[in-house]
């Protein structure tokens, strides 16, 4: 079966032919395709493009960031530690409660020892080298420090509840105890009486109902 609309075979229909002629004016006017050199697959790209490719740049940037973050953390920890040591040294000197313990020898000649306390006068030795006795502070974290101080304070001053009523002392305490016992006995007696009355009333009710039946 011929069908001009479908495959252009057979007798052409007038309106179909007219539409073909009319709309044919809008058909694609072929123009050459402009393909950029880099758009072709398997085309070798310049070395610069492969060297600074996006994944490589991303990896490099993240590595640099990690390195910077690490350096910052280490520096910060060192600073904190130095500040802590300095603070502790100051405390021990001002309070004057340095405990005998390990010794740190400040040997200026060799430069091996690092801690020097300028507030304490060094004792001269045979070699003429200054010796300073110091206690090495045990390193504590701020939170541990806080709890240790709190515990110390609690041990020094026992906690007192100001809102609690004052407890009676001596004879007064004995009298109060006796009164309490008496009051308890009275309450118990009252409860027993009430219970007996209730039992009696219940029995009466049972009797009445039996008689009625």
């Amino acid at each position, binding site marked *: 079966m011929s069908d001009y609309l*479908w495959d252009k075979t057979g007798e052409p229909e007038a309106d179909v032919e007219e539409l073909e002629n009319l709309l*044919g004016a809008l058909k*694609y006017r072929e123009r050459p395709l402009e393909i950029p050199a880099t758009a*072709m697959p398997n085309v070798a790209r310049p070395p610069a493009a492969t060297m600074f490719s996006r994944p490589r740049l991303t990896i490099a940037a993240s590595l640099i960031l990690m390195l910077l973050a690490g350096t910052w953390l280490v520096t910060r920890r060192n600073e904190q530690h130095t500040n802590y040591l300095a603070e502790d040294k100051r405390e021990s000197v001002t309070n004057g409660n340095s405990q005998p313990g390990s010794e740190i020898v400040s040997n200026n000649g060799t430069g091996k020892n690092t801690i020097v306390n300028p507030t304490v006068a060094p004792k001269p030795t045979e070699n003429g080298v200054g010796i300073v006795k110091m206690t090495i502070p045990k390193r504590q974290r701020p939170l541990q420090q806080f709890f240790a101080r709190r515990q110390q304070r609690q041990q020094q001053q026992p906690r007192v509840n100001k809102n609690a009523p004052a407890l009676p002392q001596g004879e007064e305490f004995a009298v109060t105890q006796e009164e309490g016992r008496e009051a308890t006995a009275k309450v118990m007696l009252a409860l027993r009486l009430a219970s007996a009355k209730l039992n009696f009333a219940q029995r009466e009710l049972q009797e009445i109902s039996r008689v009625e039946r």
Partner: protein
Amino acid sequence: MYELEATGGMLQVIGTDMSAREAAAPLVEISSDAALVASVRAGDREAYGRLYDAYSRMVHGILLARVPYGEVDDLVQDVFLVALRKIDSLRDANLFGPWLAMITRNRAMDFHRRSRDTAELTDDLPAANTSAPEAEATEVLNLIRLLPEAYREPLILRFVEGMTGPEIAGRTGLAPASVRVNIHRGMKLLREKMGAREVQKGALKL
């Protein structure tokens, strides 16, 4: 004789008897497409030029069914460049046509998405240097654009690009029976719309 039942894009063929001629023609094209795609992947520019020659009308027609006439020519080039960049992602080289058609439809959608913020000039506005037949053609094109989406594409490919039904089916990868039904139903609706337009024009003249 055969019976056809079509609903939108879905189509069921009952007792069909496809002619050997219709079935054989796209097969030859498909095998040559696969060879051309392989050459393109190996870096052959000329092979891509041949694919462009074979499919530029299809791409133009698909775009014309969705995008204003003035924008279509540039978008055709754009679609072929996008396809070239993505050609390694094409799994079955035999399906280059349907794959390209899909890229074209996506590109048309993308065009509308991007130009949502800007005021779009429709084809209803007469261009300054448009000839009378071209203006009339644009008018008919606008009538086709008013038809349901399934009919627009095959009608434009048939009338504007001058492709036959089997050619449309072979290039776009749609079932020939489906294309046939859509062309016939679309033509029926277009005749109705054109008849109504003629009546309107006659009434205006009176």
